[in-house]
């Protein structure tokens, strides 16, 4: 008994020690400000309770808000929210440790009593090694040092799994039910963080079955599996949407029929639901009924955190995605409607043709009407819900089972996976399965798994090519064979990439040993194995099946599978048990050592794994000192002038969220407005743009809400053939034409007023291919040659431009690709990280003075001056944009003959973004030219030499790639060949003969190779 108490005490102490190690590691490497992707948005959501992207994370917001209060100033808010992730991740490691030691204890001591010291040591070693291996693994660490929901969701998953083991220990006592109730409550809360947590429920049902069943049978296990998945389904597809849908009926009844103010029905619904459940609970005398009812109530109690979303959305905040301020909008928000439907088990492939049916004289696309969609409309102060549309499910011909290639937008990439003869037809079952296994399972799951436990090639996103984002072992000949190239000749860029982590597959082997150990330890072991396996599959492969991912994802998706890597870490811990047992058997044979020495030795051997892992992963997870997201976001805003309340049109994700962070959290440049072009297609976002935000007045949009309501004017055709008719009409009846079509019928404001806003739908078109915005500043002609249609977002941009009258400057961000707003291309003037849309742009593409001022005096560079700062792919991409702009400025200054200021820009560049942190690209050749012009040949040589050396390394290595894998690398090869060519051109131009002697031959060699390849 004494030993047992000792074990408990030691176990908890070591758990806290592991927690402390993880917390310190994450605390040291945490990002001191916002990170890229969704993090800036989440920080604003926590700090100011604004509404982020669907389906929202209200409980995360509440906890993040508490942490945000600890910040001394707004600039520290991001750090405190990041620290929340760090602490929750350390908490996850804490429960991982306790879970491993629980499992190991049951394997070693069937009675549950730990009696000897060697057993204590052995069990603790399992826990420490498994927990630390996971703590230092790539995917988990990534989420631990930034403000995302994944750290929180990992914590809740670990907590829930530990709670069920806690229950297992006490299952025979009367108090054990409260663990089940608590799990139900955490389940409810986790809906307000991330749905991923729910995926551990099936595995937990097995723990219950094994503990409670009198006799374990195959049939019983099958039933348990069914019950577990059913439970998941009930929560996911029943309770979560059902409660809201029922609330909608009540709201509809109260508002539309009984004419109460809105939200009355909802309030009554909440009260009725609570009372009803309570009544049912008390009427139900039997435990078998009471426990599920108590659990249901607790799930709903946790789920009620969505009140935050509903209430805050009614405050009409500057950032309020999808505006879920009423129960119906909340339903769309929760079901993530904006991301569209993905077929799962039966549905169309990407090649399926729409199914048509005869309706009168026309053929129409066959569709099923789904649930009705209501939206509020206010009339004379009275709010009423209108039926705006029904969810429509369009029907296709040639549906298939388990459609994995489903997105018509990705047809080109799917085709690459198929037999070239069959392109354009519905994929066969074999092709479908090949894509599922080859891409979704292998590339988008196992690759990530192996990154974590075998090794990762580098931190650059891979799309299947040899050089980016693969998994590797670190053992030369294996990697040569895996990748199909000679890894000993890797270019230094790739060799020194901090994201290159090699574990020699040691964690994988230890985890497999853990599985083997469970398998060998009798029925208890096999039961554990089944439970952990289910957790592993549900949080891994099951997500793969559910997500049905398309190719060309915008970023690596490993974070979604952290739960399954968690399950594998359990096995890594238990792997130490295997080593321990082997040592014990061997030492008993040769009769040396005692039990304690064996356990210590197993622990020491096992410890190699986490230590080797952290030696590799530290440098690419250490985000300390990095302020790039904050500063680069501010640079977008500071590219614009201080006066006139400028507006910037931006693209999604990293082009928008850092700007929001600056506005919402740090209060930087609140006189400006960021307008995301992806969202401006939606009515709720236009509503927001029509409201003032901080110091920025409402955007100049005169349309009424009804004009841009969802479903209206989504796309309008461009009809140049009407132009002649209008001209003829003007000739014939000038007065009537003026009255009907405006003074100049091709002026944008007249087209919008007379045509687009015309209530007759057939009039809603652009009747010309050339429009003009007239003003005192000069006329701006917008050519729509080759454009067949304009979307609502285009119409909004035109509306703003015509109404702003150049008094309110409108910019487009540099990240907005040329696909967006192509008709404005001739009217853009570069001033920083943004182009000003200007009627005077023709012939003048760069505002040198403003650009110079911005780069030299107003921009900040995120702490990149500190050599050794961790620059990942996304940060590098943003830094490259800065360098490109600097290159353009240097060229422009040189053209003006202003060599002195051009040199100043070069110095700024080299000081702010030293090449150790941001390696040179082609853009640096502008700098080299400037040095040569200024009579500084050594410095110019340094740049040209660096680019030539690196491109030579790349191209030489590319030559070692096996021919069948070369096509994937064609782009990299092309880029580096271009770099070499341009560098040599600069060398020749400034008469740097030595480079030509050194690289001329090699260049010609690569030229013939590139042509052949």
């Amino acid at each position, binding site marked *: 008994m004494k030993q047992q108490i000792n074990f408990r005490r030691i176990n908890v102490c070591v758990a806290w020690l592991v927690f402390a190690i993880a917390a310190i590691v994450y605390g040291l490497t945490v990002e001191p400000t916002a990170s890229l992707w969704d993090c800036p948005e989440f920080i604003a959501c926590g700090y100011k309770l604004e509404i982020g992207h669907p389906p929202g994370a209200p409980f995360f917001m509440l906890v993040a808000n508490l942490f945000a209060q600890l910040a001394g100033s707004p600039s520290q808010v991001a750090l405190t929210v990041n620290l929340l992730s760090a602490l929750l991740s350390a908490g996850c490691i804490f429960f991982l440790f306790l879970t491993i030691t629980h499992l190991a204890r049951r394997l070693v001591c069937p009675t549950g009593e730990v009696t000897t010291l060697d057993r204590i040591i052995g069990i603790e070693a399992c826990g420490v090694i498994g927990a630390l291996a996971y703590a230092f693994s790539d995917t988990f660490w990534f989420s631990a040092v930034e403000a995302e929901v994944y750290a929180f969701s990992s914590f809740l998953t670990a907590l829930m799994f530990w709670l069920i083991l806690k229950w297992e220990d006490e299952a025979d006592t009367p108090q054990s039910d409260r663990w089940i109730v608590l799990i139900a409550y955490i389940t409810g809360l986790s809906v307000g963080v991330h749905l991923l947590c729910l995926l551990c429920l099936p595995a937990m049902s097995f723990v219950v079955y094994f503990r409670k069943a009198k006799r374990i049978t195959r049939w019983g296990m099958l039933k348990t599996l069914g019950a577990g998945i059913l439970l998941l389904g009930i929560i996911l597809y029943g309770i979560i949407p059902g409660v809201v849908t029922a609330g909608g009926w009540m709201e509809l009844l109260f508002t539309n029929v009984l004419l109460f103010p809105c939200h009355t029905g909802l309030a009554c619904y909440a009260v009725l639901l609570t009372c009803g459940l309570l009544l049912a609970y008390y009427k139900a005398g039997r435990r078998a009924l009471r426990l599920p009812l108590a659990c249901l109530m607790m799930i709903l109690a946790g789920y009620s955190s969505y009140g935050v979303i509903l209430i805050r959305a009614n405050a009409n*905040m500057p950032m309020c995605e999808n505006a879920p301020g009423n129960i119906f909008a909340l339903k769309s928000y929760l079901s993530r409607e904006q991301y569209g439907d993905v077929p799962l088990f039966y549905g169309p492939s990407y090649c399926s043709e729409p199914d048509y049916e005869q309706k009168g004289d026309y053929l129409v696309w066959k569709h099923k009407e789904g649930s009705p969609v209501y939206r509020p409309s206010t009339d004379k102060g009275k709010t009423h819900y209108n039926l705006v549309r029904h969810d429509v499910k369009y029907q296709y011909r040639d549906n298939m089972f388990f459609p994995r290639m489903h997105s018509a937008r990705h047809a080109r990439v799917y085709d690459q996976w198929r037999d070239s003869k069959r392109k354009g037809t519905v994929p066969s079952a074999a092709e479908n399965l090949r894509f599922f296994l080859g891409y979704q399972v292998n590339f988008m799951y196992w690759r990530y798994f192996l990154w974590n436990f075998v090794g990762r090639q580098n931190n650059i996103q891979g799309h299947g090519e040899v050089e980016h984002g693969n998994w590797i072992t670190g053992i030369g000949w294996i990697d040569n064979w895996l990748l199909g190239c000679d890894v000993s000749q890797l270019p230094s860029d790739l060799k020194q990439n901090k994201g290159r982590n090699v574990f020699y597959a040691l964690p994988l082997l230890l985890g497999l040993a853990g599985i083997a150990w469970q398998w060998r330890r009798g029925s208890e072991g096999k039961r554990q194995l089944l439970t952990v396996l289910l957790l592993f599959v549900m949080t891994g492969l099951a997500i793969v099946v559910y997500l049905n991912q398309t190719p060309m994802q915008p970023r690596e998706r490993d974070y979604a599978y952290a739960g399954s890597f968690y399950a594998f870490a359990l096995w890594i811990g238990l792997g130490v048990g295997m080593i321990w047992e082997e040592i014990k058997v061997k030492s008993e044979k040769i009769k040396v050592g005692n039990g304690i020495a064996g356990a210590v030795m197993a622990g020491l051997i096992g410890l190699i794994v986490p230590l080797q892992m952290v030696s590799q992963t530290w440098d690419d997870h250490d985000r300390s000192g990095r302020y790039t997201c904050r500063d680069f976001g501010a640079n977008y805003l500071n590219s614009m002038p201080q006066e006139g309340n400028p507006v910037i049109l931006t693209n999604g994700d990293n082009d928008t969220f850092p700007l929001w962070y600056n506005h919402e959290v740090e209060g930087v440049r609140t006189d400006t407005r960021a307008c995301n072009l992806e969202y401006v297609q939606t009515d709720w976002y236009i509503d927001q743009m029509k409201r003032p935000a901080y110091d920025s007045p409402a955007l100049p949009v005169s349309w009424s809400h009804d004009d841009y309501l969802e479903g209206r004017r989504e796309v309008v055709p461009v009809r140049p053939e009407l132009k002649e008719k209008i001209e003829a009409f003007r000739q014939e009846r000038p007065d009537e034409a003026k009255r009907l079509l405006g003074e100049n019928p091709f002026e944008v404001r007249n087209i919008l007023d007379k045509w687009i806003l015309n209530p007759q739908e057939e009039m809603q078109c652009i009747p010309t291919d050339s429009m003009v915005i007239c003003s005192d500043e000069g006329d701006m002609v917008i050519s729509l040659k080759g454009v067949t249609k304009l979307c609502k977002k285009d119409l909004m941009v035109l509306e703003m431009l015509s109404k702003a009258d150049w008094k309110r400057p409108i910019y487009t961000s540099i990240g907005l690709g040329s696909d967006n707003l192509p008709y404005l291309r001739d009217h853009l003037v570069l001033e920083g990280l943004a182009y000003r849309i200007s009627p005077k742009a023709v012939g003048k593409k760069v505002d040198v003075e403003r650009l110079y001022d911005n780069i030299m005096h107003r921009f900040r560079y995120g702490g990149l001056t500190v050599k050794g700062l961790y620059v990942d792919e996304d940060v590098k991409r943003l830094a490259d944009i800065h360098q490109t702009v600097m290159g353009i400025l240097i060229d422009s200054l040189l053209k003006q003959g202003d060599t002195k200021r051009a040199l100043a820009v070069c110095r700024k560049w080299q000081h702010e973004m030293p090449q150790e942190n941001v390696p040179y690209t082609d853009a640096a050749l502008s700098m080299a030219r400037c040095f040569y012009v200024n009579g500084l040949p050594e410095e110019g040589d340094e740049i040209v030499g660096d680019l030539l050396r690196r491109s030579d390394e790349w191209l030489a290595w590319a030559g070692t790639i096996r021919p069948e894998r070369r096509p994937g690398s064609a782009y990299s090869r092309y880029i580096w060949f271009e770099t070499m060519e341009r560098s040599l051109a600069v060398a020749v131009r400034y008469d740097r003969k030595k480079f030509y002697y050194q690289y001329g031959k090699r260049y010609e060699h690569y030229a013939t190779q590139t042509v052949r390849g």
Partner: protein
Amino acid sequence: MRHRQSGDNNPGLIGKNGRLIIMAACVLIAVGYLLMAGPGSTEQHFREEIFSARRIVAAPMCCLAGYLLIIVGILKRD
């Protein structure tokens, strides 16, 4: 969320003290949501008050305290 009830002969679920705590927690959450509510911005003017301390500091803390207190209530033994 659950009321006191006489003759509760099922000690396995939450006890009397626990139920009291959960009730108090639910009141806290409700108070939190009341504090969070209020008028919003309009097309005419931006209302600074939507970010007042009452609505984005006191209210969420109140709610969070309530949500955490429920855990205490569930685990409380009589």
